[in-house]
Structure formats: structure tokens, C-alpha cells
């Protein structure tokens, strides 16, 4: 019988990505409801030692396919490796990060093993079905975040889903935990390498990952222009955070798209999300509503952003933010002298 939750923990350049740790954290809760185990799976070349780290984040077992054919991501060798893992281990659930790699690999494998796959989930839970017992309920946004749908995969196994990075919380790292790594051997042939990687070019400019920031000071159309972000940046520095943006500012060319929050941008869950001159379109809210504390400043007292804010300020952020930055500077200086 199919059992256990398998988390495909993505690695790039031999380093585990954050999303895999988040998924293992989430999987430990689901596994408790199912009475099953969490198994971390790493596919790559020379990744066995790194894979052991998954124990520190909550995995009960770790499985690898460690082979030179998996050095740089190519669809077919990875699909073959993962299909072999599924055939050998017969998992109940398989989770992927909804990254470029996860969203390329998962549908290919789901097609091959003939099972269902739910894309880009933002919520997972276990429900009791009268007919088939415990099932994974996979919730995801559709229609640009306008509606949410909960999807089931009743009669095919494994139940598969890709999950948005930044939505689930990783467990606190426990360095005392370790364990053995189970290696699954897969024979690769030249026919599996049906594409040839001519060149790999990593982004040279350091891309700021806003999903990692604890504090985000975020700007919308109401900040007035590209210089508005200089003002926000100063405030963000005092808060130890980063700046981010609504789609409007990215479309206007005020700021780079890597900082965009929302349905077509990134999902963030910082401790503080300070929304400045952001109206709060549903597509934007979809990307920031899990933030711990939301403070919004907007001139329009009916702005939708106030509906998802813990504290709303009706006013002009161009006036309030510089004053707030000053207050923070004073506060930080006093704190330091104490």
C-alpha cells in the first residue's frame, strides 16, 4: 500500500534550496495526521552529504539518486530518476517546490506514473473521505488569485503537488539530528540525455531574494515615482529590511521585477510588511497576506489594503515615511547607547 510523504528537496549547485526545507516542515504536520513518515529525496550529483541536512529540518528518512547524469538539471534524466524512486518506494504523497525545476519535472513524472498533480498550492491539509479514507486536500489560487480551489486525487497514487516557495514554514534547524542516506541506483543511457546543455549562465548581479527578508517596506503607485524607492530604502535600512513593490511600479519601470510581490510576483511572509501607497488589488494581497504584521499607509481611506492590515494609516506616505525614518533613527540610536 502506498505510504509516506516524499518531499523532492531541490538542489542547485549542490546546495539545498529553502523551499525543500519548508516542505519538510509542512510535511511533518501532514505526516502526523496520516500516521506516516516524511522522506526527503535529493536528486543530483555529489549531493549525498548535503542531503543528510534534511534530517536537521525534520525528515525521518532521506533517499538520494546521486549520479553524474544529474549534475545540471535536464528533464529526462531527472524524470527517470524520480520515476524509479516512486516505483521502488510507492509513496502516498509526493511534494515539489513550485520552482522552475519543480514545475518542469512534476508534470512529466505525474504523466509517466499516471497520477494527478496539483500546481502551485498554497495550502495542504488532510481530510477524511467516506469512500477512500484519508486524503491530501490541496488548495491553490486560480483566476489570478480571485478564487481558491481545493483539489483531491482520490484514486491514483501518489498524490502529487507543487507548493509555492515562501508559503510553508520550515522547522527550526536541529543540528543534533542525523541519519543514514538510502541510495537508489538508476542506470542512465545516452538516450536519456535527449537535450544537450551548451551553456549555463548564472545571474551575475546579486539578486535580492525578498522572500528571505524579515521586514519588507513595499511601494505602490502612491510613492510617486522611482525616487520614492530611495525614501523607502532609507526606512528599510533602519528596520533591517528590504524594499519590495506592487506590480504597478514594476510595469512603470521604477524597480526591478525580482522585487514584485503578488500573484505574478513573489509570495512573501515577513514579520513586518509595510505597504506604502499600495491600493491592495487582490493579485497583490495574494502575495503578502500571510505576513505576520501588516501596516499600510494610503491616502485613500477606502483602499482595499486596509482590509488586510493590522494597522492602517490614512495619509501620504511621502510625508509619513521620512518622519518614520527619523523616528526609527532616533530609536535605534537610543537603543545603542543604552
Amino acid at each position, binding site marked *: 500500500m502506498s505510504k509516506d510523504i516524499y518531499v523532492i528537496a531541490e538542489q542547485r549547485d549542490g546546495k539545498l534550496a529553502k523551499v525543500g526545507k519548508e516542505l519538510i516542515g509542512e510535511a511533518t504536520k501532514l505526516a502526523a495526521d496520516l500516521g506516516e513518515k516524511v522522506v526527503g529525496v535529493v536528486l543530483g550529483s555529489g549531493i549525498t552529504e548535503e542531503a543528510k541536512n534534511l534530517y536537521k529540518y525534520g525528515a525521518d528518512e532521506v533517499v538520494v539518486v546521486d549520479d553524474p547524469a544529474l549534475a*545540471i538539471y535536464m*528533464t529526462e534524466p531527472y524524470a527517470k530518476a524520480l520515476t524509479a524512486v516512486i516505483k521502488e518506494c510507492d509513496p502516498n504523497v509526493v511534494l515539489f517546490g513550485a*520552482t*522552475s525545476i519543480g514545475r*518542469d519535472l512534476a*508534470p512529466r513524472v*505525474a*504523466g*509517466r506514473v*499516471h*497520477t*494527478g*498533480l496539483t*500546481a*502551485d498550492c498554497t495550502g495542504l491539509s488532510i481530510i477524511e473521505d467516506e469512500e477512500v479514507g484519508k486524503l491530501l*486536500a490541496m488548495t491553490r*489560487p*486560480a*483566476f*489570478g*488569485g*480571485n*478564487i*481558491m*480551489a*481545493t*483539489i483531491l*486525487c482520490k484514486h*491514483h497514487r501518489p498524490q502529487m503537488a507543487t507548493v509555492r516557495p515562501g508559503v510553508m514554514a520550515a522547522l527550526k534547524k536541529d543540528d543534533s539530528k542525523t541519519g543514514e542516506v538510502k541510495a537508489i541506483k538508476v542506470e542512465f543511457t545516452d538516450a536519456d540525455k*535527449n*537535450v*544537450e*546543455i551548451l*551553456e549555463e*549562465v*548564472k*545571474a551575475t548581479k546579486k539578486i535580492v531574494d525578498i522572500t528571505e527578508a524579515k*521586514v519588507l517596506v513595499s511601494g505602490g503607485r502612491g510613492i510617486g515615482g522611482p525616487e520614492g524607492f530611495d525614501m523607502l530604502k532609507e526606512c528599510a535600512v533602519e528596520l533591517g529590511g528590504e524594499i519590495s513593490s506592487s506590480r504597478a511600479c514594476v510595469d512603470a519601470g521604477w524597480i526591478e521585477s525580482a522585487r514584485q510581490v503578488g500573484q505574478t510576483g513573489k509570495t512573501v511572509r515577513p*514579520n*513586518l510588511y509595510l505597504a506604502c501607497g499600495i491600493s491592495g488589488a*487582490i493579485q497583490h*494581497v495574494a502575495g503578502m*497576506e500571510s505576513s505576520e*504584521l*501588516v*501596516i499600510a*499607509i494610503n491616502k485613500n481611506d477606502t483602499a482595499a489594503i486596509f*482590509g488586510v*492590515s*493590522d*494597522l*492602517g*494609516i490614512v*495619509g*501620504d506616505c511621502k510625508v*509619513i515615511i521620512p*518622519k518614520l525614518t527619523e*523616528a*526609527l533613527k532616533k*530609536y535605534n540610536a537610543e537603543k545603542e547607547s543604552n
Partner: protein
Amino acid sequence: MKIVVCIKQVPDTTEVKLDPKTNTLIRDGVPSIINPDDKAGIEAALQLKEQTGGTVTVVCMGPPQADVALREALAMGCDDAILLSDRAFGGSDTFATATIIAAGLKTLDFDVIITGRQAIDGDTAQVGPQIAEQLHIPQVSYAEDIKVDGKALIVKRQFEDRYHMIKVQTPCLITALSELAKPRYMTVSGIVDAYEKEVKVLGFEDLKNNFDPANIGLKGSPTNVYKSFTKQAKGAGTVLNVTADEAVQAIMDKLVEKHII
């Protein structure tokens, strides 16, 4: 080069609004469009044809109204159009949809299949790779550029933090980012021609030997929708309409209270 582009007709989701009273989607009057990534795929296909010669066939699965999307593609310059349409196809999830489209593609001779990366109504990005799997051909997703190299293609595949230049032999499937190509406008003569051309319709009877009927439609879909709902808004907190100095004080108090500073 024989190129096939798979497109989807979608509601323009940027136009979808919520009814504030019932909290449901207002779909009336929302225009249907060719999915943006797919339209970039059409443009890329037309450019490939201009370089190498050949034909561009556009394929769409959907209700009879999707005829409009196919005619728009013809007016942009595609040579042929095929609509995969049957009541039996309704309710298909991505697996079943890919099964039907792959069955339709098996009736054609092709070197390259281009699909959009994802559709703006579902955002799954699954159908393209699942078609490639069913046809047992290689896929290259997130294409930002395509060049012809003899019988092969060289594709720039964009990831979050890097890109790859990938050489892939034909036949293959490529999923297009909207950055791949800026779609051209329809021409007047193109529109006239488009309405004189025939859109070939293939239904269940035409395709039943190309798929297992158990794998299509609602019943053939491994996944099903358990429930759908509009999002629970996070409850609104305090909204203050005070002077700037008072506002700053309120923010500072909140930051201290929540241990942000």
C-alpha cells in the same frame, strides 16, 4: 519546418472582478482572449516559419466559441487551425487535457510543438510537459529565445537565477514565456482570409483510437475539485486618520508591541 502551436482561450483575468455583496466572480462581459504566453508562442512559430519555411498549425481544445481564438491566430498568419471540441472532453484536468491534445497532435505531422508556459486562468504550467510526456518527445520549458540549428533548435531556458542554452533535436515541445516574442497584430487581409478558412473540428469519434477513453473528461481526470471558494480576507485592524506625527507614533508603538524593533 512543421510547427504546431497549442493555444487556450481564457477569460481576461485582469478584468475579473468580485461582486462585493455576494463575494463571487463577475464573469459577465469579461472578454475572452488568447492566453498571453500562447500568443507569444504563435508569434515565435511565425518567426520560425519565416526563417525556415514550412507551416504553422494552431490547435485549441475548448468549446465551440474557441473558434474565435483560432481565427485570430489565422489572422496573425497561421496556416491551419484545428479545434478539439466535444462534450466528452468537458471537466478534464491537466492530465486528461494533455491526453486529448496529444491524441489530436497524433493526427498531424510535426517537427516542433510550441505551447505557452501557463494559462492565466489556471496558472498550472502542466499541460505542455504532460503533452510532451504522452508523445514521448523531449521538452524545453520557459523558452525566452529559439534559434534554428539544422534539424535541431537552440533554446534559451530561463530559470529564477540562471539560464541555460539548450540544444534539442526535433521533434520536441517547447513552452513559451511571454518574453519569447511580442505578438504581431492581425492584418485586415489576414482577418478576411481567416474567416474564409476552415477551422477543422475534431471530436471524440475522430480521436477515440488515439487515446484510452477512460483517460479523458471528468471521469478520466485523476484530480477533481473538492470545493472552490473566494478567499477569506484577513480581518481588518485599526484604521487611523490622524496627523502625520500621530501616525508615526502609532506605527512606532505597534513596532515595539510586536517586537519588530
